[in-house]
């Protein structure tokens, strides 16, 4: 059963699982009628990185140390239970593909249940392009193990040596005697088998993939085109109320006085005042909105001097000391070696996540158990936050994650889920909270404003002589350069987000490929400045200074597909290049832009992007993610900037905060590099890192003007052109 079906079914047919964690496992098998279960831990030994050092499981009766499991039922259907969530990036399709491939069962026999803290094992969250890259191999290993169990059972039942049997399309059979066969369902019947993966089983060679590696229609496509797909704000339970919450006018403001009496005069309105949480509730959200407008509140607004103009000076003034990430050679030697030196400062502003679905949650408390439907990228984190807020133990909180309408790193704070739970507790009825767009802009955990300073030099032959790099407040993701440079130093001041006390005046958080957009904008702009300064074509210059074979291959693929012919910038053609590494994936892109010098506007006409992401599980899905990255990246490159002053966020809706639209989108051509030697790597984020420098370099090629600040708004473009 797929996520949406089971939401629609209101869980009736899977209640057998409900008490899984509180009953003994013998009891669990009795309830489910048995089958084959394989548990897997994403621990360091088996799979490395993702959840190492994090708490696991933690529920009473929970088989210890596992993060995922799959079940083969007596009907032959296979179900994967995962704490990952679907927010458009496609695991609802790609994970079953990986599972079906390894288990040798038809794709349509595989179901997936996602993001339900009662049904799915603990997971840290869906971010960092980790689902396919780290969770995927674990799932494949579980499937491989399940196949071994099935082969063992079949060998016994059919009295045929295991080595002689073949698993294919959900059936195990003896090729020498085709009548000697059993389906997975027949094999699972009456079984109560539980396996815990101890060693990593041998996985299928990707060149033999038949289900993975092929394009498949998204499993969520039909429910999404018919309006049946349920998001958190779409869940309805009897007796529910819609809440609207009183908000401060500025960050840091404290409620001084409030008069809720006028709101109470509207029939059916309930008012909750629980400390700083003041809310009006009604059976209709629009009536709650009207009632909220009648509340009279006064706030103490602290004086805030940092705004979107002086933010960069402020950040530099409070920056922590350098944390050197990498260094080699001697910078002084490099400076002596350099024929030309370049010193630049790059800036980027706060950027909003701006998912089309605002944060939403519905909380229902029955007795000592709470159920919360939430648009979250980390349901287990939400569960723990809710537990703390309403004083129930975590195992009494069930967080269910319906489809999430876009996340991009912005749905990890779970404030709306906590608010819904607190209000449900206060009124004793289910409560629905859905943020308005204005609340979304105010409470977003923005991509941090950041500064990068680079000193670099190139010798007389066009080789990089030194590279001295300091990034402030964007963090280290993507900071380390990958060019061959003998004398280098790379340092980060402050982490990727959160900053240090007194640094960011707004909340900050992960934003699609966090840090890497900032770092790649700076690095690839600087590389172009060096290429132009040394009199080289920017692609040729990069290739002259690269030895990493994957990067060379991906850059050459982009250049070849684009039809690149070398020329020193500015060539007036409006061509730009950029490359980078994110989430284990190598990307390179070339763009063509047209600049209207009088208006300062930029139209990106064409983008060719090549990507090496190791083994490709769902090639069409991967290309769609690349297109999404390129399209979304137009925004932070060209228009997206959060304006603020005195603690107030001045952009409250799309009238002033412009996100990419249809007419902005270039002709996009994507190239996937065949690389079965590398395990699957991330796909939802990498290509977006290129967009800042890609467009900046193309603007320079078109006009000779160099942009050092994102976004490249018309006034900044015009100002840069005037300096040429």
């Amino acid at each position, binding site marked *: 059963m797929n996520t949406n079906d089971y939401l629609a079914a209101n869980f009736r047919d899977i209640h057998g699982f409900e008490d899984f964690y509180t009953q003994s496992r013998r009891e669990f098998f009795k309830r489910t009628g048995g089958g084959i279960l394989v548990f897997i831990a994403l621990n360091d030994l088996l799979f490395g990185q993702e959840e190492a050092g994090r708490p696991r499981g933690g529920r009473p009766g929970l088989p210890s140390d596992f993060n995922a499991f799959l079940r083969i039922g007596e009907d032959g259907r296979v179900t994967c239970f995962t704490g990952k969530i679907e927010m458009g990036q496609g695991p609802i399709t790609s994970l079953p593909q990986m599972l079906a491939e390894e288990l040798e069962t038809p794709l349509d026999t595989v179901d997936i249940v996602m993001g339900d803290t009662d049904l799915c094992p603990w997971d840290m969250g869906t971010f960092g392009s980790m689902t396919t890259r780290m969770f995927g191999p674990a799932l494949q290993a579980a499937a491989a193990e399940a196949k071994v169990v099935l082969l063992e059972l079949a060998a016994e039942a059919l009295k045929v040596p295991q080595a002689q049997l073949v698993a294919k399309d959900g059936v195990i059979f003896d090729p020498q005697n085709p009548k000697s066969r059993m389906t997975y369902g027949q094999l699972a019947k009456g079984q109560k088998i539980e396996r815990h993966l101890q060693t990593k089983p041998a996985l299928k060679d990707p060149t033999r993939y038949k289900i993975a590696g092929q394009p498949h229609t998204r499993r969520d496509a039909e429910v999404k085109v018919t309006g049946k797909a349920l998001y958190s704000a779409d869940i309805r339970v009897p007796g529910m109320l819609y809440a609207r919450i009183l908000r401060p006018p500025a960050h840091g403001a404290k409620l001084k006085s409030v008069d809720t009496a006028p709101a109470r005069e509207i029939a059916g309105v309930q008012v909750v005042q629980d400390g700083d949480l003041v809310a009006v509730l009604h059976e209709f959200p629009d009536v709650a909105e009207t009632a909220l407008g009648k509340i009279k509140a006064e706030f103490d607004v602290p004086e805030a001097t940092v705004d979107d103009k002086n933010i960069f000076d402020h950040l530099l003034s409070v920056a922590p000391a350098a944390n050197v990430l990498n260094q080699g050679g001697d910078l002084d030697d490099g400076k002596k070696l350099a024929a030309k030196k370049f010193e630049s400062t790059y800036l980027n502003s706060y950027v909003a996540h701006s998912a089309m679905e605002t944060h939403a949650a519905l909380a229902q408390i029955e007795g000592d158990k709470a159920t919360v439907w939430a648009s979250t990228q980390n349901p287990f984190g939400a569960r723990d936050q809710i537990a703390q807020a309403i004083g129930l133990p975590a195992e009494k909180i069930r967080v269910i994650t319906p489809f999430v309408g876009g996340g991009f790193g912005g749905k990890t704070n779970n404030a709306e889920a906590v608010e819904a739970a607190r209000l449900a507790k206060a009124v004793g009825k289910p409560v629905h909270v859905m943020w308005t767009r204005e609340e979304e802009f105010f409470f977003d955990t923005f991509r941090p404003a950041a500064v990068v300073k680079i000193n670099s030099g190139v010798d007389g032959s066009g080789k990089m002589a030194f590279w001295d790099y300091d990034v402030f407040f964007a963090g280290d993701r993507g900071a380390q350069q990958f060019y061959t440079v003998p004398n280098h130093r790379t340092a980060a001041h402050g982490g990727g987000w959160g900053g240090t006390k007194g640094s960011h005046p707004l909340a900050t958080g992960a934003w699609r490929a966090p840090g890497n957009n900032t770092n790649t904008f700076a690095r690839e702009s600087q590389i172009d400045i060096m290429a132009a300064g040394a009199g080289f074509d920017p692609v040729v210059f990069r290739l002259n200074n690269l030895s990493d074979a994957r990067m060379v291959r991906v850059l050459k693929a982009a250049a070849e597909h684009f039809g690149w012919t070398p020329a020193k910038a500015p060539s007036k053609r409006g061509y730009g290049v950029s490359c980078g590494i994110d989430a284990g994936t190598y990307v390179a892109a070339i763009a063509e832009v047209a600049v209207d010098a009088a208006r300062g506007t930029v139209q990106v006409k064409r983008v060719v992007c090549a990507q090496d992401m190791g083994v490709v599980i769902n090639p069409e899905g991967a290309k769609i993610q690349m297109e999404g990255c390129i399209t979304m990246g137009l925004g932070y490159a060209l228009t997206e900037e959060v304006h603020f002053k005195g603690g107030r966020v001045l952009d409250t*809706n799309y*009238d002033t905060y412009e996100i990419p639209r249809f007419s902005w989108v270039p002709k996009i051509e994507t190239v996937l590099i065949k690389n079965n030697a590398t395990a699957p790597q991330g796909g939802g984020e990498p290509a977006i890192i290129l967009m800042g420098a890609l467009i900046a370099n193309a603007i320079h090629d078109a006009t000779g003007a160099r942009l050092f600040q994102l976004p490249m708004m018309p006034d900044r473009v015009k100002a840069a052109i005037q300096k040429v």
Partner: protein
Amino acid sequence: MTDTISFKLNDKPVRLKVDGDRPLLWVLRTDLGLTGTKYGCGEGHCGSCTVLLNQRATRSCLLKIKDIKDKEVVTIEGLAKDGKLHPMQKAFMEHDGLQCGYCTPGMILAAVSLLKFNPQPTEQQINQGMEQNFCRCGAQTRIVQAIQAAAAEMKGSR
């Protein structure tokens, strides 16, 4: 103030006793339980709440329920007929014209309206027609392909 509002919703007559000033979006989503129509911005910028009003794409967040008296409203739930998907829905599925899916109902209805009044649009006309519908995931390239495919499939039939 309670009014009695009659209109046609997804081919069926509806009579509601309701405050006529309430926004159509919230009446659809709460009173009528049709949650396919989404809230995105509440100010008519983003198009997530698009419905067809007398066959023309319209922002339901800006419409008062009294404004639709005796008119014909189609939401995403009413687009498929007799269990058969509309060609635009099929095209969005086949061309992957969606990711998170949140803007999809509005996109599909805006596209249906576009073809209603311009059955064979150029790519530029598609961009213009869809310009005020936002997709944050960046599915625009595939959405344009889907609309082109649906236009070819429908050949001006609807």
